[in-house]
């Protein structure tokens, strides 16, 4: 057990997070962007579980449980929004969606 240092898990988590960021920033397809967000959530989850396990405390895993709940809710609503937008704009390319603009 001692063999795997906690840093390895954390660096993996950080790497996945960074990849997720890259995805969010470079991908144009809204659904893929969503998936990247899921990836980032998972990287956070990984860190949580890692700490939970190394500390021997279940709280971290409970948190992961909640994160998953939120992720599920978020993806459900988010995908619904994407469908609604697609219906209006006939695209899910976020470069063409700038209704936030002033």
């Amino acid at each position, binding site marked *: *057990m*001692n*063999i*795997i240092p*906690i*840093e390895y*898990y*954390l*660096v*993996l988590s*950080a*790497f*996945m997070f*960074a*990849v*997720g*960021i*890259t*995805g969010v*920033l*470079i*991908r*144009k*397809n809204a*659904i*893929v962007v*969503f*998936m*990247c967000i*899921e*990836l980032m959530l*998972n990287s956070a*989850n*990984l860190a949580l*579980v890692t700490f*939970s*396990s*190394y*500390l*021997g*405390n*279940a*709280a971290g*895993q*409970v948190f992961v*449980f*909640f994160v*998953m*709940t939120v*992720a*599920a*809710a*978020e*993806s*459900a*609503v988010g*995908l619904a929004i*994407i*469908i609604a937008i697609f*219906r209006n704009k006939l695209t899910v390319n976020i470069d063409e969606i700038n209704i936030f603009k002033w």
Partner: protein
Amino acid sequence: MSFEFILFIFFSLIAAVSAVIMITRPNPVMSAIFLIINFFSIAGLYLILHAQFISIVQIIVYAGAIMVLFLFVLMLLNAKSEKDILSGKNKIKIFAVVIAGLVFAQIAYLIFFSSPGKALSPDVAASIKAGTVEQIGKELYTNYLLPFEAAGFLLLASTIGALVLAKKHFD
């Protein structure tokens, strides 16, 4: 080199590589499939960390439910392949990669130089106990009862929300 370490390297390599592949595939369906692979490997990592419950939930909820939903939407919208994901036309993309790399380097730097490993003395028995369904269930129904209820409510709300949003006409 213990078995655990080999397993760790195996799963973490899959996770890292699948993540990179996922964001570079032009076809969103391919992205989704690599994301599922990533989730599976993370579930494996959870097992190594003695988090059995979370590991199973990861497979059921994420890989099973959420990703299926994603694929379903992808099919529904018939999303086209994305071209020029990393071509230099849009300078912001290069900056994005640079920034992401920078953030990763920073976090990694922080992780190694704060070296949390020295402060933590893992207790295998405790960690095994922490990951059991019993323990998590106990926590959920005692200390985290209110958030648990709230989470349920959140799911209900999102169900209704998704329904309302996705419906074609509502008045």
